[in-house]
């Protein structure tokens, strides 16, 4: 089975930034990059399907040079082939989900696939659009928020999350796209020596020209016009001091509020 994983590299959740005075951009103070968590689960699901079906896993990532690190980790975990669609940081930041989906589907259409997997959501943008948009552009069916996969004869049985512990069991025929939910399987780790070995392997690099795409064609339809601080749902009282002082003050407050 040919499996394609769309893998995004995102800033980690401890990212720190300041909003520029005019609200037009973010000035990053502390950034490190990781594989988007839900995409890591998509990769894990693909690797399990590979083991089960003697399959072949191709991982695709869009972004500047830094995303190669994510691709090497994916190869160290067991991906067979990595494709880097190279684009500059600045251009990447200006894209919206529809532009990203356009680029990815162009790249996929040159790759054999039965199942395409990606995460249910990205940490940074959290739009949950790219997977479904790719499927629609390739004209294949899709199931979102997948929490289980079982390969049958020809078809695949899929569990889709519905909330509050409920799931729907569904049947779909490949080729199909699945967006994978957190926790579908436990994640494997890539030991450092395997990552170092992966770095000796080659990554296929594609540019927008190779995909026959012009800047005009990937023009975003939506764009961020202003960044601003999140509104405060409640106005918190900050309790400060040594751990003992904090504990004393907190318990005093909670006793006065008669909750403990």
């Amino acid at each position, binding site marked *: 089975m040919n499996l394609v994983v769309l893998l995004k590299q995102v*800033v980690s*959740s401890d*990212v720190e*930034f300041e909003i520029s005075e005019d609200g037009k951009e973010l000035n990053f103070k502390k950034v490190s990059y990781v594989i988007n968590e839900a995409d890591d689960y998509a990769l894990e699901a693909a690797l399990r399907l590979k083991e089960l079906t003697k399959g072949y896993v191709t991982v695709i990532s869009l972004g500047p040079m830094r995303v190669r690190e994510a691709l090497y980790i994916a190869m160290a975990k067991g991906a067979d082939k990595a494709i880097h669609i190279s684009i500059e940081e600045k251009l990447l930041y200006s894209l919206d*989900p*529809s532009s990203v989906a356009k680029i990815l589907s162009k790249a996929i259409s040159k790759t054999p696939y039965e199942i395409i997997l990606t995460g*249910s959501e990205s*940490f*940074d*943008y*959290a*739009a*949950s*659009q790219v997977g*479904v*948009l790719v*499927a*629609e552009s390739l004209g294949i*069916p899709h*199931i*979102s928020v997948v929490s289980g996969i079982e390969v049958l004869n020809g078809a695949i049985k899929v*569990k889709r999350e*519905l*909330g*509050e*512990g*409920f*799931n*729907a*069991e*569904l*049947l*779909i025929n490949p080729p199909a796209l699945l*967006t994978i939910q957190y*926790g579908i399987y436990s994640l494997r780790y890539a030991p450092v020596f395997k990552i170092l070995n992966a770095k000796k392997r080659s990554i296929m690099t594609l540019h927008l020209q190779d995909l026959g795409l012009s800047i005009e064609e990937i023009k975003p*339809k*939506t*764009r*961020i*016009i202003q960044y*601003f*601080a*999140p*509104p*405060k*749902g*409640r106005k*918190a009282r*900050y*309790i*400060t001091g040594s*751990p*003992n002082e*904090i*504990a004393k003050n*907190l*318990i005093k407050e909670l006793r006065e*509020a008669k*909750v*403990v």
Partner: protein
Amino acid sequence: MNCVAIVAEFKLGKLDPSTYELISKGRDIADAFKTKLYLIMLGEKIDEVIEELSNKGLDQIIAYEHPLLNHYTDAYINILYETFKELKPSLILLIHSFTSMDLAPALAAKLHANIVTNCTDLLIEDNKLIPVRSMYGGKVWVRIGVEDEKPLIVSIQKGVIKPKERIELPKAQILRRSVELKEDELKVKFLRILEPKPAEIDITKADLIVAAGRGVGDKSGLKLVEQLAEALGATLACSRPLIDLGWLPSERQVGLSGKTVKPKLYIACGISGASQHIVGMKDSKIIVSINTDSKAPIFDYSDYAIIGDLRKIIPAIIEELKLKES
């Protein structure tokens, strides 16, 4: 502007109350642009729901009833696509949910519409619609500019819009439409609903909750949070990653895919405050959070904020509780 259309949100065959949030928002926008508000509904036995929604401020309800529409499949995409092709709404509103995560982008692709998902608000400024959403796990919010010639699809988080009280509500015109559906023509075939395992505890009944997040780091960190719960006589709950790691059973999970709780006290330990977690606990009476990251979004929803390492703070709180007891 042409009309505004809402897609009713159903959950396990029942109307989800978040639909009222969409109706309230949709009515405001339709009034501002002097246009009509439609609601499209797909389901199996929906007579009661139609009746229930008939006087809630909608101009028209379009209802599709069919046994195969009891659960979401690609049939929804096809029916709504045909409906919207004909109705030509300028704005389509949905709740950001397990259903719309699949449905909304598919509709956008088919209708060549602009789409902004997972929004926290939808504003009107200078006669333009401005979707508002959060990014980076809630650390920053953004306003989105949209090309305006095309229809716009917007999905909004559950619980962020407070429905307005309205006095004069005209009766909606009801349009029932029949659909021909054949199971073997669907690309996604529904088999059955899998129910959650019977729970041993019900965290929604707890008065006091101490919740652990990924910030516990490892099982010894989780143990500390458990000890705090014990010392307070509180129930232990958690954010999703601890379920995914297999450290706690799913019945303890708070949030969109877990339980919604409203205890008198909710202490969040090492939880960042992603919207899917917030939706499940934001109506708790008193919220305390402990987090090392001074910019963690959870603090925006807290009454008491403690910036610090839970491994140092929690033992001190447990000591303090013991002290008062003896």
